[in-house]
């Protein structure tokens, strides 16, 4: 019975990857044809300097891309849930499970943000990075589902890990936006944006958006760290022990606090703020990859 669920989970993950691939292709199609569109658009006004993009031709591709992304999200959700059923615990016991859940959170963060902001230009990047994550997970990190070690048996696992994973998804999204900012800034410093970048929002919007994302999720990350401390107190008898994972969670927290200060109180904007944002996000990724795979300490549950 347990293994059946594990198989079901794998099928869902594979289907999600297939659908992410369709979404990726649709995004690529949209981007590619949005590049060609300007030639056919707006020439009637005789003003070649302000070419605007005509998205009518690619609108359908864009919709398919987003719809597929949503479908893939739910398939992946089913995969994660089935994995949990097969292991009889929340599916956060090893690095394979962290990775598929992380990919889910990242996609989810994008889809939720998409409702409020026009982020479809990011879809190409999102779908390819989720595909790469899932591919790595299923080929390199895959482990059979197994029971949790006793220290992980706690309600706090659910609370702590879910808030950490959601925070991570949003942090990474903020990083992607900050990265887009830096890239576009370089492009713009050399002249006008090429056609395929025209629909990406202005630099100010990107700058503001990455800040919004961080400010939105910083309380949740703070909560995740505190929930971890409460859990550590009940499992290990101390709420803070400077274990490598704890240390890097702290570093991430301080880095984002510095970012928020730099923006709100010192008035950093633009390039400097974007670099600081990316630095803070990298500490999160580093914690996930380095400490799980090569690190020592009480937190190495990667199963590798």
């Amino acid at each position, binding site marked *: 019975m347990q293994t059946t669920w594990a198989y079901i989970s794998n099928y869902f993950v594979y289907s999600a990857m297939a659908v992410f691939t369709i979404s990726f292709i649709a995004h690529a199609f949209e981007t590619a044809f949005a590049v060609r569109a300007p030639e056919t658009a707006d020439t009637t006004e005789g003003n070649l300097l302000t070419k605007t993009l005509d998205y009518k031709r690619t609108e359908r591709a864009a919709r398919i891309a987003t719809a597929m992304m949503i479908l893939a999200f739910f398939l992946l959700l089913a995969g994660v849930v089935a994995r949990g059923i097969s292991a009889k615990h929340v599916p956060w016991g090893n690095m394979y499970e962290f990775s598929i859940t992380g990919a889910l959170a990242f996609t989810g963060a994008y889809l939720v943000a998409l409702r409020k902001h026009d982020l479809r230009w990011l879809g190409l990047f999102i779908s390819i990075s989720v595909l790469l994550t899932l591919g790595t997970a299923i080929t390199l990190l895959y482990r059979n589902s197994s*029971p949790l070690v006793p220290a992980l048996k706690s309600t706090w696992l659910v609370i702590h890990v879910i808030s950490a994973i959601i925070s991570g998804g949003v942090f990474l999204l903020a990083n992607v936006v900050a990265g887009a900012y830096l890239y576009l800034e370089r492009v713009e410093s050399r002249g006008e944006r090429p056609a395929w970048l025209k629909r990406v929002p202005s630099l100010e919007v990107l700058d503001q958006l990455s800040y919004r994302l961080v400010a939105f999720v910083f309380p949740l990350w*703070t909560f995740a760290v505190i929930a971890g401390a409460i859990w550590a107190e009940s499992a290990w*008898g101390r709420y803070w*022990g*400077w274990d490598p994972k704890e240390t890097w969670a702290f570093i991430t927290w301080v880095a984002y606090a510095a970012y928020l200060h730099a923006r709100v*109180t010192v008035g950093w904007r633009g390039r400097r703020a974007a670099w600081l944002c990316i630095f803070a996000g990298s500490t999160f990724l580093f914690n996930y990859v380095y400490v799980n795979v090569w690190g020592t300490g009480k937190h190495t549950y990667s199963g590798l």
Partner: protein
Amino acid sequence: MTNQVEIPELGFIGLLRFAWRQLTSMRTALILLMLMGVAAIPGSLIPQRITNPMAVRDFFANNPGLSSWYDRLSLFDVYGSPWFSAIYILLFISLIGCVLPRSVEHYKAMLAPPPVTPKNLDRLSFHQEISASTASLELAATWFKQKRFRVRIEGDSISAEKGYLRETGNLLFHLSLILILIGVSFGSLFGMRGDAIVNVGERFINVPTTYDTLSFGKLINANSLPPFTVKVDRFVAQYDPKTNAPKDYTAWVTVTDSGKTSKKVLKVNEPLTFGNTRVYLQANGYSPVVTVRDSEKKIVFQGPVPFLPQDGNLRSIGSIKVPDAKPSVGFVASFVPTNARTTSQGAISIFPELLDPKLLFSIWEGDLGLDSGVPQSVYKIDTSKLKQIGLGSVKPGETFNYRGGSITLETVIPWINLNVVDDPGKRYALLGGIVAVLGLLSSLYGRRRRIWIRTTNSGVEVAALAKNSAPGLEAEVNDFVKHLKGEK
């Protein structure tokens, strides 16, 4: 004359004032904050005494030159080092210097009405002029009241403000960080922690001598241990047959606390609580119960000997020291709960439960050095001055005879490691943590904004301003204008 004395004094105070202003400036706070993040990094890459003393010892053995330099820079004790402490102490002084005056200011601002309406409203965001009836100001006042704005009503204008909770939350958040720091320091000054290995069937009595390791905060001493006992009745460890990973550890214990006895269950995430002191189940292993006899069959040693696990399958090492035998003997031993042999490693364990237990040992004769006064590990024997007289192995019930005596493995019982902790500061740290999250929520999600309205010749003009250009103000102003026009 007087001048000459006064100038340096003023200069000194001026200098102090200058330093204070620098320290409490935002730029300094930002630098200190980043420094603290960077300073925490080495401690996660270099082994630390507090988390992994063994790794520190290995590091010393492997890199003698480098490690003496590391040690001089406190790199093995990063989080207690002078330079790390300097950074966070400066940060917190800066924090206090920044937040306390702001709290006072904020408190005053909350009591005072909002600032007066600026002269030129048209320079502010969402400025619009509307032709409206003369009753506009009253309409506006009721709207502000409904929406719980705080208002300053002047002859021809109203200045309204809302969202003080943002600032309140921000200040609470910063103050809560101070509370957390107080909690942490309080715990390390007045707390205690200790470890004790207890065989199943034995009783742990909370006095200093029963501990294997015990440390106290700087400001308390050994007299402050609360009197309780924990008798371990039964212990069960369950392992997954496929992966050998542990699934569950449960200890059934009998607890006496101030004269009252009760049965309790102790698990990894469920410690026992005695007032401020908590007892955690931290590790487990096996104690072979052995009987050692001399050549005349007289018992010279009998009892359980805790062995130290070396891997996930609980291959364990230990030593049995028999000073009462003549001459005294020692057994350098390893114990495997489920025995298997490999050619490369010798005896190994292939499962952590007692499926096929075996005790393997070498026997050494001579002065064990127990009376030398030098503290010794109970798990190891220094064999440099001893003579090996045999090699053997036994399964439960078996006896091994050697020149000068015999050893019998009677049975094997599990032991558990109890971790006893008293941290009187943790409740303050927890309270600080809760306040921090609540404060952050109201600080980062709160929107502080002002809306103004003033009558003009042709009607009224409206303008608004949001701190940090928080979103949503436009909708609010539109709603306000609709109300003024009577559309709502």
